[in-house]
């Protein structure tokens, strides 16, 4: 459950203050698959970073599963992130010196936990990377790397998965596979997924689409809404 109220974020470049988020209110239910879309520079990635506690807002409030994130110390934000959240990035961000296996269990270890080999095996099977455990990231293709990243983001069974352009660097076929994978995990484990993308082909996977423009939520639409497709199509076109 994510609750965002009057969230703003300014960036300072030299003397200039650039508002990136200009007051965002948003509520995401547990288990929802939300897609945030919008042109580049509209603030969608910034929102995701703020939700993940990677950055602090200028004002406003973010509640993650009932806990206020903005008032937490840096350390507590990190702890919250590593317990409740998983991250998937556009450029995979695998650790080059770790093997696939070690990359996947990294979040568990960071939390001082042991990985159960069964869990890892299951995940490896799910992302179809069984047999690749001891490979290094640079020995994998982009799609394989992103699948490792997804496995890594889910190993600690977070309630929230934050994905920043997860298909941005992949071709149509591979990005389809990644989206299928996310859909499958979402279907089976009911995480809350917040995915930032500008890819129309990814948007169809979400239950709800939030449209960003110039630092505010311009519109949002749910899959069950009657003119869902037409509305979105109009917006995007």
């Amino acid at each position, binding site marked *: 459950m994510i609750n965002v109220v009057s969230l703003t974020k300014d960036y300072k470049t030299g003397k200039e203050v650039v508002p990136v988020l200009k007051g965002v209110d948003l509520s995401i239910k547990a288990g929802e698959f939300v897609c945030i879309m919008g042109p580049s520079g509209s603030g969608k990635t910034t929102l995701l970073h703020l939700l993940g506690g990677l950055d602090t807002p200028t004002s406003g409030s973010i509640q993650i599963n009932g806990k206020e994130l903005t008032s937490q110390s840096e350390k507590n934000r990190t702890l919250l992130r590593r317990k409740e959240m998983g991250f998937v990035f556009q450029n995979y961000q695998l650790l080059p010196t770790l093997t696939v296996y070690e990359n996947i269990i990294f979040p568990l270890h960071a939390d001082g936990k042991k990985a159960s080999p069964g869990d890892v095996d299951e995940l490896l099977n799910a992302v179809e990377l069984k047999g690749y455990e001891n490979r290094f990231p640079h020995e994998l293709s982009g799609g394989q790397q992103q699948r490792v990243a997804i496995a890594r983001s889910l190993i600690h069974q977070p309630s929230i998965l934050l994905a920043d352009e997860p298909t941005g660097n992949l071709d*149509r076929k591979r990005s389809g596979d990644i989206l299928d994978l996310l859909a499958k995990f979402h279907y089976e484990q009911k995480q809350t997924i917040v995915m930032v993308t500008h890819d129309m082909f990814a948007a169809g996977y979400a239950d709800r689409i939030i449209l960003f423009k110039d630092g505010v939520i311009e519109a949002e639409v749910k899959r069950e809404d009657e003119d869902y497709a037409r509305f979105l199509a109009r917006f995007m076109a």
Partner: protein
Amino acid sequence: MSVKHSLLALLYEKPRHGYELKTGFEALVEGLWPLNAGQVYTTLDRLERDSFVESLSHDKKDRKQYTITQAGKEELWFWLNEPVGRSLFKDEFYIKFLCASHVSYDNKKSMIRDQKETILKDILHLTHLRKQMSLSGNDTMKLLIEGALLHLEADMKWLERIEEEL
């Protein structure tokens, strides 16, 4: 053409009666192509006339049971092997665009925009379908959708290109 051969494919599997063929077809296309009973029977008649199927027996409820013949099997193989060309004017929008230019239609812009909107709608629809096919494990259907999506992506790019030309 493809309905005829789809029926042959269904009959190749096992003998079926008319209604079974209708539901079988619909299941094959995941209900995305509804078929009415009349269409099924006219097609069956044509197939029987061409000696591709026979209706020798009846089932317990006394419905006509169709069976594929050797000629039918050969026709099915022939069809499966036949590559499919793509005519330039298969896409109706191409003809529309051609005609619009021919008559100096003023609303070309909105025509393109509406077409794009429709394609986006289709993309959203198909991606959602793809998600469902993926979850239900229908890989062949997923592949078809992927193909359609690639076409849509290309159409979209083309529309963007002609939009620029205007």
